[in-house]
């Protein structure tokens, strides 16, 4: 649908950490503009995939291409949302500071933040709906508000690729819903590629186009429709998963109750 280079190309990639192979034989291509759920059980290497893409972890073998080039640290075309901040640090920093640091925090020496940088920070905060509480301390914000600040950090530099690590963890249903809607809108208006690590696919189904799933030590990539299947999900999570189709869309759910005596 566009002619930009793929967001991610893996060509027979394997990743080793601390002497242990995290995953191997990764061969896949994620097209620009896709919204990708990265799924798999704990320890399967979902965050590791992000670290490879961010240039923080070299691969043991194979070739990786991110946005048409080799992965490198400090790639400003990638916006990254890691998992949550600790409360101790949240006491000492405002949301606005975190977003500003994404623009200016790499610079050495004493330099003032320019008016143009301030304007960009304001735009990013407004876009995610965080302008009203950006001057409060992070520790004073709810989980949903913190997540919006984190997303503002990721988009303040007009990133073309957003990597979000469990953005819906610890959010209530309504906040999950709103963050998902925001991600869908951001993708549409920027034609950005979005990759989301998640344990629960349900809230993301309205926006996902693809899934990368880590199964039996290898990354796989499929359109989302082919991933939401009882057999595959059951195998993936190692627990019975049923798929229920509703008028609004697909819903997959843990279905252990089927085995329970009644």
């Amino acid at each position, binding site marked *: 649908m566009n002619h930009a280079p793929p967001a991610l190309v893996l060509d027979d990639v394997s990743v080793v950490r601390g002497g242990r192979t995290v995953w191997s034989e990764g061969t896949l291509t994620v097209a620009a503009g896709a919204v990708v759920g990265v799924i798999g059980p704990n320890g399967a290497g979902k965050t590791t995939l992000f670290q490879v893409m961010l240039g923080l972890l070299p691969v043991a073998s194979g070739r990786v291409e991110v946005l048409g080039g080799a992965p490198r640290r400090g790639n400003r075309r990638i916006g990254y949302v890691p998992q949550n901040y600790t409360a101790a640090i949240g006491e000492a920093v405002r949301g606005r500071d975190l977003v500003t640091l994404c623009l200016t925090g790499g610079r050495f020496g004493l330099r003032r933040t320019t008016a143009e940088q301030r304007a960009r920070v304001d735009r990013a905060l407004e876009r995610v709906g965080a302008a009203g509480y950006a001057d409060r301390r992070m520790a004073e914000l709810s989980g949903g508000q913190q997540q919006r600040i984190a997303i503002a950090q990721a988009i303040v530099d007009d990133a073309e690729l957003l990597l979000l690590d469990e953005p819906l963890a610890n959010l209530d249903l309504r906040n999950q819903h709103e963050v998902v809607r925001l991600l869908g809108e951001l993708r549409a208006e920027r034609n950005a590629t979005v990759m989301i690590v998640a344990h629960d696919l349900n809230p993301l*189904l309205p926006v996902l186009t693809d899934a990368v799933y880590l199964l039996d030590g290898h990354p796989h990539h499929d359109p989302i429709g082919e991933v939401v299947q009882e057999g595959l999900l059951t195998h993936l999570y190692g627990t019975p998963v049923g798929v229920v189709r509703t008028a609004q869309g697909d819903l997959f759910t843990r279905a252990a109750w089927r085995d329970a005596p009644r």
Partner: protein
Amino acid sequence: MADDVLAGVRIQPNWLDVLRAPFLQHALIGGSLVAIAAGLLGYFVITRQNAFAAHALAHIGFPGATGAILIGVPVTVGLAVFCVGGGLLIALFGRRVGDREIATGTILALATALGVLFASLASANASTTTSVLFGNLLAITRAQLVVYGLFTLVVVLVLAAIARPLVFASVDPAVAEARGVPVRVLGVAFVVLLALTITMAVQVVGTLLLFALVVTPAATALRLTARPGLVAAIAVGVALLSVWVGLVLSAVVDLPPSFFIVAVAVLLWLVARMSTGPRRGTTARALPNGDHAHSHGAVPIGS
């Protein structure tokens, strides 16, 4: 009985002269230099969750000081070598907070044991040991002042150069690293600055009371604001005020300044704490993020 105890506390009739004496001038300058460096670093000690390491570094300086007495070199040199060395060891072993606590504690124990050993080998008298543990601001010499001036200058200049990346790496290390900020190098640089500051601060308030200059002023400032630059400025102000008021009080009643410096710092912290009320989470509960209308689309209910 109480009268006997209080007999030790009385106002010196000549305290104005004491304030003008050279040793007190030295103390004032030395204490101010330490206050500046400590105030500037406090924000980072707190955000990097390095409070234990800061405390430990002060104790790691103890064998440095007694060892210096043993081999006959200036105490400042021994302190600096051990503090910087200990800081680098902690940075090397403890990359993660959990590892760091263990590495710090272990190095701390070894250092304290060495300190006791050196002290006994050097047959250092009790007052020398006491001055390391509790500080002896009134004994600061002109030569020490020169060293303090240099240390503080290094802290200020390096901090000015690395301030922004260091703030980024301290409050948001994961994103900072992804953004290409050299998080580990900055961590090592910070530990060296901290070690230099602690080398000075140990001689002002001693290893046991060092917290009051390195952590407490920044904690006071953090009650009032979360802007990093402003926190540093207020922390420096609080630390300076503590040193100045503490010194004057100690001259007036002729008792060791360490107590008064720490007392003022802690008092300011208590005032800031009580006047700003409980902080964490109160506003978040009062104001749920309700600025968004209901959204559309097909999101299934529950799982």
